[in-house]
């Protein structure tokens, strides 16, 4: 069973920590964390994770800008991205639907729910 590696990019360190532990405890996947777009992209290029969980609302460069930047980089543009967002309104959903991403997960979420949604969206059934 190949061990999955996920990169979590979220400006809230609390969320990064709990998500890291959640995946460790439930799926034993390795979780890399970054608290900004810049750090996250650098880490993605270096580590080539199997997927990226990306927060939408971050100061400076938000999730959407991060997606644009990733798309422009050959080495990481094919890594599937899942957006994590507190915005659940219809007009936001419509915006997200246009993006080249694997899916959207809305905050807040329980640990188990997060994991199962990620599994479904990436079709990593185990």
């Amino acid at each position, binding site marked *: 069973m190949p061990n999955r590696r996920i990169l979590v990019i979220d400006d*809230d360190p609390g969320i990064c920590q709990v998500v890291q*532990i959640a995946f460790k405890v439930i799926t034993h996947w390795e979780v890399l964390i970054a608290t900004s777009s810049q750090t996250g992209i650098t880490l993605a290029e270096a580590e080539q994770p199997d997927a990226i969980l990306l927060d939408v609302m971050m100061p400076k460069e938000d999730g959407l800008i991060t997606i644009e930047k990733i798309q422009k980089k050959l080495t990481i543009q094919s890594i599937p991205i899942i957006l994590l967002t507190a915005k659940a309104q219809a007009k936001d959903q419509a915006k997200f639907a246009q993006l080249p991403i694997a899916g959207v997960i809305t905050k807040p979420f329980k640990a188990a729910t997060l994991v199962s949604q990620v599994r479904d969206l990436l079709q990593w059934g185990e």
Partner: protein
Amino acid sequence: MAEVNDLDKSKAQLIEELAALRAEVATLRQQSFTDSSGKPIQPQLCVEIPRTAGWGGTIDYRNGETAEFHQLLEKLQKCEFTWQTVQRIAHVGSWQYDFLTETVSWSDGVYRIFESDPTLPPSQRETLEQYIHPDDRERYREAIGQVSGGESFEIELRILRPSGEIRYVEVRGEPGVFNEQGQLIRVFGTLLDITERRQAELNLKESNAKLTALSDNIPKGFLYRIFYESSNGFYFNYISAGVERVLGITPAAVLQDKNVLYNLIFEEDQQRHLQLNENSLKTLSPFEMEMRIRRITGQIRWFSVRSSPRRLEDGRTVWDGVAVDITKLKQVEAALRHSEAEMRAMVKAIPDMLIRASKDARQLFFSPGTLTPYIPAEPFEEKSFYDILPVDVVDQRMEYVRRAIETRELQVFELDISINGRIEHRETLVAAINDSEAIIVVRDMTERHWLEQAKDEFISMVSHELRTPLTSIQVALSLLDDGLVDPISEDGRTMIHIVTEGVDRLVRLVNDILDLKRLESGKLRIQKHACQTQDLIDAAIRQMQDLASQSNITIFPPEESYEVWADCDRIVQVLTNLLSNAIRFSNPGAMVWVNVKEWNGKALLFSVKDKGRGIPADKLGSIFERFQQADGSDSREKSGTGLGLTICQKIVQQHGGCIWVESRLGQGSTFYFTLPVEEGKDHAK
């Protein structure tokens, strides 16, 4: 044969000539002729004088032709021809009545007038009477009787043509030939067709009657004719019956004395009336005036009086005019003016912009209300929308105007328009007035729109700010709850810590939001007491001590203390907030200073200074706005609620003070705020 100048002879003259000729003939008849031997001879030549000469019969001459006779005959024929021509041209005919034969004979002219067959002998007596209009037969007989008695007559009567047509004729007759005993043996006469003339007379009479009927029946008005001559001045020659109806005075009275009417003219209008009269007389220009005239009952009415003058050959001037009662009209005009004034006043009071628009994009009426027009316009100045607004605004507006007119339903839409450099948000309502016009009401919604947008943004931000800590709380608790993590393990302890922090953050956020809301809505009342600044600063430092210790940060309070009139708890809140920021944005082991001093003698100046991260220059302006985080770095370790500075600002403002910041990126920030010292209160040290 007849010469032109013969035609000029009047028929009277010709009749005379004929009579003279006949007399000559008669004389000739009585002459006796002798031949060369002296023997009397009887003329043997019989000349048939044609009936058309006015008499029929023969003249019997016993002797042969004589030169005199031929001359006479020629003369006769000439005369005859002239006479015929005249008759033909003048629609005149001549007739003769012979008492001896008791017959009447007619000329061609008479046949023509009667339109009867010239080959037949003329109607006689009773048959003749058939051709005379029954109503006129009596007079005809009288006339005949008159002339039989030796008197001339002249009558007009109607004759009936065989076709049934009635013709008017003038018949004249006079005694013509008498015998030796002095008895009248022949009557001569003429018949003149005067139908055209009579018709013209009748038409004129009819026309006059019509005019009178019309003028007498003008509703609320009258016709008149005034003359002016230097000897008599102005006088009425005619005034229709309407004057009695509208003013209560009779035409007869006015004709007698113009002042019967003139005195009724309203005093204030009399002067102008006279002036305009004089002017019209002098310049022969039309007279036009609206004037008030009193009815005989005393009631005042408005009249529109108009007449046009002509100068006559005899030097008189005549005006033909009409006067119409326009009181009702004047009343309606006044009511309209009044209602228009009311409408204008009402419209001025309406703060909305009002526009009356035509289907073809014309502005018919405009009242800006309190809004600033794109291009100003006068209320009733008609303009094309395309001349006063941007094309796209007009196109959009006209689309809704057309829709409103078509569907007769109220149309509502919003638009943004740049007015003098400022974008305004306006709500527009369009309602149809009729098939071609609509009324447009424009309301300024800029502030409301901005507020709504701000509210939406705020909700969005708050929702995000709440969900963020809730996420870490929920993930952590669910791991513990599901038994996936043991509470007493290291991971477990981390989870509990994260939950605790998250809850704290939520509590702070909720408190801040509620505070802010209460401050904004004015429900949080500042209650001022006398406070010592020392006490306030100490309380704030105490609250922040733990946080400061965590990063080894030292806070230095001021030495001086002043008395200030303020809401102590709220000021402590402000100081706490500022200290919290200073601590969070300073590096470990750093120092923070709190100071207070007098300012301009009227206020106290507080300051909280740090040597931490600093705030970028572009953020300085907006740092007091809601949810503005001045994070220069990528990390968000020391996140606050984003509302702290906003709350500080509100509290300080409610005290009547100001708050601001001076900062340099990388060198630190100093937050200042002032609190006014109430007058009369001195500050003790």
